């Protein structure tokens, strides 16, 4: 049904989205909590910086990443020296681009859901002997879980479809950096490949729908955990 190249593109997209989320999510949870709970100098600046990937042309973001992560860049040369990880023109670079572009979308719902958690519950936990980490792990994080899930799904979907920054940072190399979106773009340049484009398009739509449905189910389950249980009938 799918050609090898198309299967490669699909698997690569999933791999890139998975790894970008794996790194972006914990950072987003931490940052979301800090932004919701802490007042500090430069908070406005952090917020503005965080929104940059949303408002900059993706090509510009990709170019900035190229400067930072290229083999001569600050971070790129450091990663190469310490972990032997190459970013430019590799799938890892696609994951970096996807993660950076998705990050603002992941942080926002997480931050909002931390803001919605009643601080007074954490005070109550403190009087019961729970320290900072235990309060976070047992009260704030579980109560913010619907937002964390929403952010994760939104981020995953964004990472899956990222185009501009990715193609700028890692180019469009079949089997290495050619994700689904990049494959569609490449096929569109070739006359007579309309059916292949259509297949990939349908796959992209299917994955996105699945992701959104999954997030709805997860969020609903998380909400149910917070509210009335089934035995309310006897109350």
């Amino acid at each position: 049904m799918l050609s090898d190249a198309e299967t490669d593109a699909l698997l690569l997209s999933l791999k890139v989205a998975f790894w970008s989320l794996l790194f972006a999510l914990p950072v987003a949870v931490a940052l979301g909590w800090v932004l919701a709970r802490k007042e500090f100098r430069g908070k406005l600046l952090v917020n503005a910086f965080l929104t940059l990937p949303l408002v900059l042309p993706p090509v510009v973001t990709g170019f900035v990443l190229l400067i930072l992560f290229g083999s001569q860049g600050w971070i790129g040369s450091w990663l190469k020296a310490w972990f032997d990880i190459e970013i430019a023109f590799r799938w890892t670079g696609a994951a970096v681009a996807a993660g950076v572009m998705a990050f603002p979308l992941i942080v926002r719902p997480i931050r909002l859901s931390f803001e919605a958690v009643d601080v007074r519950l954490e005070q109550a936990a403190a009087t019961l002997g729970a320290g900072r980490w235990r309060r976070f792990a047992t009260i704030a994080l579980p109560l913010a879980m619907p937002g964390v899930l929403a952010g994760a799904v939104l981020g995953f979907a964004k990472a899956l479809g990222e185009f501009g920054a990715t193609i700028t940072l890692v180019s469009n190399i079949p089997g290495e950096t050619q994700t689904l979106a990049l494959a569609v773009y490449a096929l569109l340049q070739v006359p007579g490949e309309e059916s292949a484009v259509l297949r990939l398009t349908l796959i992209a739509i299917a994955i996105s729908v699945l992701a959104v449905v999954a997030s709805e189910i997860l969020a609903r389950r998380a909400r149910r955990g917070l509210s009335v249980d089934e035995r309310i009938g006897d109350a």
Partner: protein
Amino acid sequence: MLDVDVRKRLGQTALDIRFESTGGVTALFGRSGAGKTSTVQMIAGLLNPDVGRIAVGGRVLFDSEAGIDIAAPQRRVGVVFQEGRLFPHLTVRRNLLYAKAAGSNGRYGGVVGMLGLEALLERKPASLSGGEQQRVAIGRALLSEPDILLMDEPLASLDAARKAEILPYIERLRDEAGLPVVYVSHQIDEVARLADRIVLLSDGTVAATGSVDDIFTRPDLMPLTGRFQAGAVLGARVAEQDAAGAMSRLAIPGGSLWVPSVPLPVGSTIRVRIRARDVSIALERPERVSIRNILPGTVRSVTESDGPFRTVAIDVADETGESLVAATVTANAVRDLALKPGVAVFALIKSVAMDRRSMALPPRDEIVT
């Protein structure tokens, strides 16, 4: 036991709170804005005093001079908040066992039993009634093995029926757990029922401290204790049961009172609160009147205040002793009856006004008859 001496500026109010408690139930009593909740938060470590010192049982929790400030989790101060603050994502059982000490100290079964929580353990807080939630909150605080328990208006968000349901549990807690309790409230009936001593707060400072009977009968404090809630709290003894009329006679120092039947044996000690607004004054003993309790006495003082009301304190005495009863009457009545200190009067108290909520078993250590 508990030593508090703190100062804190909060916006426009300056708190300057000094009191100590030697155990039992100490009520922090005062109007909203008097500084009750801030005091509780400072003891619990949720709000830092600007300067001062807080110690529980000799253990210093906060001392601005010595630079001591033990964090809330290490203070071993249990708190029952007004709104319960149960963790909504955890079952009742897991709320109760939240404190690390809760599972291991062998008190779990006892606390669950004392508070009647067996049937609720697998439910989520949102499915509980307000009274049930507060019982769980009390159990959760008890199981954290605190050195002292702070209860910040635990009944304020409940209706009268829920209050009546939960008060007996707090009484059991006072009598069985042997834990010092600081009970914050602006409801005289709760405080009269539960507390040994009262710390009366007003505008961020301690206006008076003393026993329940003293504070609520002092006419000079009535503007603070609240005119409509004001009244005398008297120690009484069940003297006679009238089964046919479903009435009981209570002997108080200086007289006796007929009240709706008290389900206690003759000789039992009880604490009874007579609200000042339920007491009327007559210059002559009324004849052919429905009021059952007519106590002869002498006016001790008439408290001046703004508005149409005056509080008249009346000494009621006979060979058995004497009690102070307060009556809220209008300024016009004071004028027409020419009430002033030394005038002989009769205090008229409707039996109907003394319902179940006005009467309570006193703290155990006062039962010495």
